[in-house]
């Protein structure tokens, strides 16, 4: 069976070119980048080349790039590192502003700091279209606010947040407030120049951009007061202890360098996305697009189909060779309805009926046409199975 992969927000295949460049760094140039000898120097040169590739992409200096194990670690380091650095100088409890629909690695990092009584926190709800209102952040600022963390592109509904607008507002209001963005889902499709965006910290992950899993980066603006959260060696300017993942870092650099000439690719994905949205909304009764149609990542589609439960739909699609998801792969272990969809005002039954389709650079129109056909059949079948049970339930209550 030809398998159709439409879950590119969960992860992407490693680009063959990226893989080729990584290969020598497993068995031949296997040195520890911290070693002084020839093997170490070879590894460290490769790492520094990759650091330059990442820095160039971000419009930053090499010294501002910290390699990590991925976006989860980058986000944890950014948030907890800022809080830790704060307590080295001051005793007063700081305040952090984030959003209600961040990825769990940001949301839970903030929630746990709050639980440990180390911070006060505000979780800004997006508007119904899945976009944060800058004024809501402005209103939430307190005298002790030290950090604002807002994702660049939401991982479930693909909505784009006004990062530049937020940073401009913050600079006018109180330029001491540190601004972090989780750009994991944005790197492929949006301008990630840190100076243009005006961010102090930015997280990303290699495996979302046709690079390998287990490696990512955190941009840390020069002079920013941040502390390490993991003890060990002095790697990465003392901010991230642990032997560097040399092949992974090489892969990350190559993957990032590959994004730059991507304009035509973005146009292609965007037109496929719009074609998919248009046909589904027209041909599947009672279907709804979650999140803004305009302020949206070129690769993301997220629908709700009332009368259908998301996991059932995923399994039916999978049986016909199509891989999609209900939302974040990281939340599929829970039975809770998506916190993202609830945050934009979806009812629990709408949130349970969601389907996320995320396109990639290898997606074809033929695959989309086939998917729409299977989608129609599967939804028909599942709606027949659910019958009137939802309306009967509400009549009873």
């Amino acid at each position, binding site marked *: 069976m030809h398998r159709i992969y439409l879950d590119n927000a969960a992860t992407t295949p490693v680009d063959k070119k990226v893989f080729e460049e990584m290969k020598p760094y497993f068995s031949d140039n296997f040195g520890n980048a911290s070693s002084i000898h020839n093997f170490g120097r070879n590894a460290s040169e490769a790492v520094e080349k990759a650091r330059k590739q990442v820095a160039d992409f971000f419009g930053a200096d090499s010294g501002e790039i910290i390699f990590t194990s991925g976006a989860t670690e980058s986000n944890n380091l950014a948030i907890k590192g800022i809080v830790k650095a704060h307590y080295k100088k001051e005793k007063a409890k700081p305040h952090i502003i984030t959003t209600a629909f961040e990825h769990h690695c940001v949301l839970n990092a903030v929630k746990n700091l709050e639980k440990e009584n180390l911070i006060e926190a505000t979780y800004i709800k997006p508007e119904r279209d899945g976009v944060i209102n800058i004024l809501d952040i402005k209103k939430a600022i307190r005298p002790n606010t030290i950090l604002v963390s807002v994702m660049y592109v939401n991982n479930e509904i693909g909505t784009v947040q006004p990062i530049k607008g937020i940073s401009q507002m913050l600079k006018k209001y109180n330029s001491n407030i540190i601004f972090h963005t989780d750009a994991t889902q944005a790197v492929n499709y949006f301008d990630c120049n840190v100076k243009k965006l005006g961010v102090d910290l930015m997280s990303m992950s290699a495996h979302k951009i046709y690079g390998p899993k287990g490696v990512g980066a955190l941009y840390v603006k020069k002079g920013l007061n941040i502390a390490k959260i993991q003890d060990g060696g002095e790697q990465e300017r003392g901010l991230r202890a642990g032997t560097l993942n040399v092949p992974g870092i090489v892969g990350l650099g190559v993957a990032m360098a590959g994004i730059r000439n991507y304009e035509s690719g973005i146009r292609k994905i965007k037109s496929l996305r719009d074609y998919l949205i248009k046909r589904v909304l027209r041909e599947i009764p009672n279907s709804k697009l979650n999140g803004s149609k305009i302020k949206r990542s070129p690769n993301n589609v997220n629908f709700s189909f009332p*009368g*259908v*439960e998301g*996991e*059932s739909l995923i*399994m*039916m699609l999978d*049986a016909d060779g199509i891989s999609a998801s209900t939302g974040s792969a990281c939340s599929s*272990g829970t*039975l809770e*309805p998506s916190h993202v969809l609830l945050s934009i005002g979806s*009812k*629990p*039954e709408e949130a*349970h009926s969601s389907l996320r389709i995320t396109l990639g650079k290898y997606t074809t129109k033929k695959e989309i046409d086939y998917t729409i056909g299977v989608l129609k059949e599967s939804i028909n079948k599942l709606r*027949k*199975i*659910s*019958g*009137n*049970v*939802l309306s*009967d*339930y509400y009549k*009873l209550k």
Partner: protein
Amino acid sequence: MYSKKVIEHFTKPHNQGTIKSPDGVGIVGNPVCGDLMKIYIKIKKEKKNEIIKDIKFETLGCASAIATSSMITDLAKGKTVGEALKITRNDVAEALEGLPPIKMHCSNLAADGLHEAIKDYQKRIRN
């Protein structure tokens, strides 16, 4: 993650649909959990016994919710009301060759649905 039996009942559910003038109906679950189930039963009296002559279901839910609904109809069909009341959630899970641990509570509602339908039937004949 799901057993073959679950997949079988999910992709080709048995006794799916409605009964026109049922003798008992049970609705269980809730939209917050994501699983809702409606069981319809038709009872026939044979001598002293009340037999479940027909049983149908409508389910909005995940694969295991649909599979347990399908399985309960197989388990209950032809049984007396007394026997059907003894069918437990565990019986359903076992007949399906097990359910993922996380689904044991939320999506394993079918036995409750059957029992509700029987209670509804018993209430109707009392009135």
